[in-house]
């Protein structure tokens, strides 16, 4: 059975990949397979939510630390899901739930994130004092100063300095992205050749 699963996964992956190179012959098959994958991904969200509820229910049952938050999460999920099914996602009450609860909570986390990042930058030199850390911090501060609005207008020569520093940062970013692209390519090849089987094979 596992061999069949692996064979199907590898064949599907190869067809989708070759569909990009031979669109005339394989485009229709590729689109069908991608559509199936999208449907499966949609169902996976439901399975994932079931997993989330099951984990929280387990925490509540065994009275673990923070299980009251878990109970609140499950209750909120059931209520929101129920109302979503009855009223539809475009109903004004459903939009209100998003705008009045989800958006403010995420905005609060964003604010915490800004403070966390600032704190991490301050601690960087305490954690690791070397030339690259100093350059990293100096350039980050310089960029912030150059792009921030001031009451006196832009910093003189800001555009030229941003362009100049951008040469190095863009070059570095492209280098990193090329490395990541190569890593992704080889990871894909390992999966297509059946060496890595994240879908449950040995």
């Amino acid at each position, binding site marked *: 059975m596992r061999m069949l699963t692996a064979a199907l996964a590898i064949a599907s992956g190869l067809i989708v990949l070759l569909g990009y190179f031979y669109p005339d012959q394989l485009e229709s098959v590729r689109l069908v397979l991608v559509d199936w994958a999208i449907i499966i991904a949609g169902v996976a969200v439901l399975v994932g939510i079931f997993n989330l509820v099951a984990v929280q229910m387990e925490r509540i049952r065994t009275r673990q630390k923070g299980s009251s938050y878990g109970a609140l999460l499950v209750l909120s999920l059931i209520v929101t899901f129920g109302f979503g099914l009855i009223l539809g996602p475009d109903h004004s009450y459903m939009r209100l739930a998003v705008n009045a609860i989800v958006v403010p909570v995420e905005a609060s*986390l964003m604010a915490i994130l800004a403070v966390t*990042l600032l704190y991490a930058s301050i601690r960087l030199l305490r954690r690791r004092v070397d030339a690259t850390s100093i350059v990293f911090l100096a350039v980050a501060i310089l960029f912030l100063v150059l792009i921030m609005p001031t009451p006196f207008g832009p910093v003189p020569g800001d555009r030229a300095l941003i362009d100049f520093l951008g040469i190095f940062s863009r070059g570095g970013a492209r280098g990193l992205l090329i490395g990541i692209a190569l890593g992704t390519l080889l*990871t894909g090849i390992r999966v297509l050749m059946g*060496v890595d089987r994240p879908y449950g094979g040995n």
Partner: protein
Amino acid sequence: MFALGILLLAAILFAALTLWRRRSPAAFRVIDAYERLNRSVGLAVENGTRLHVSLGRGALLTARGGSALAALAMLRRLAERTSVSDRPPVVTAGDASLAILSQDTLQSGYRAAGAEDQYRFSTGRLTGLTPFSYAAGAVPMIHDENVTANIIIGDLGAESALLVEAADRQNTSLIAASDNLAAQSVFYAAAQDPLVGEELFAAGAYVGAGASHGASLNVQDILRWLIILAILIGAGLKILGAPI
């Protein structure tokens, strides 16, 4: 057709080097983060504490899935190595299909180690579907699950700073890598031994996932040199005024 040629070249090199690496294992340069990862895994098993593996939000239907697949390969090996532990590693993901695959991978790891009965489906968890809900769901794992080592590998954004901060507050070991440049900046500023760029994809090779992972690194090196050569030739031709 050029892209297909590159792909075939990479596949052929990969197959040849995998066969070669089976007979002659590769010696890798020392990467501090992976040294600490291997040490932390051993310590967690000995102390009866947990590993927390955060796989990020790399949806497999997008180009971001590569880092998720690399993280799953590492997870598989970690599951095998920690199968004797009293407390199995807990895995969090911000994408539903990735969470399901993490459960499959954990189960495969335990099966390979002959300890399938140790597997619990609740150790692979979906904690949220948006960046912040994912981070908000994963942070309590770091605080409440007796975790001594956090491995954050995958596609994350700036929200990863919340995970790093939680790990730091708990004074736990942290190994962090991402394919996302924003997350890499966060890790560089906040993690002890950050992994930069393609070092993420070396995870499998450094945790002993097999000859194929070592061969992958060799092929990446060969292709990187070819790209450098192509850039230099292109720049030279441009300077000489060739129409490219």
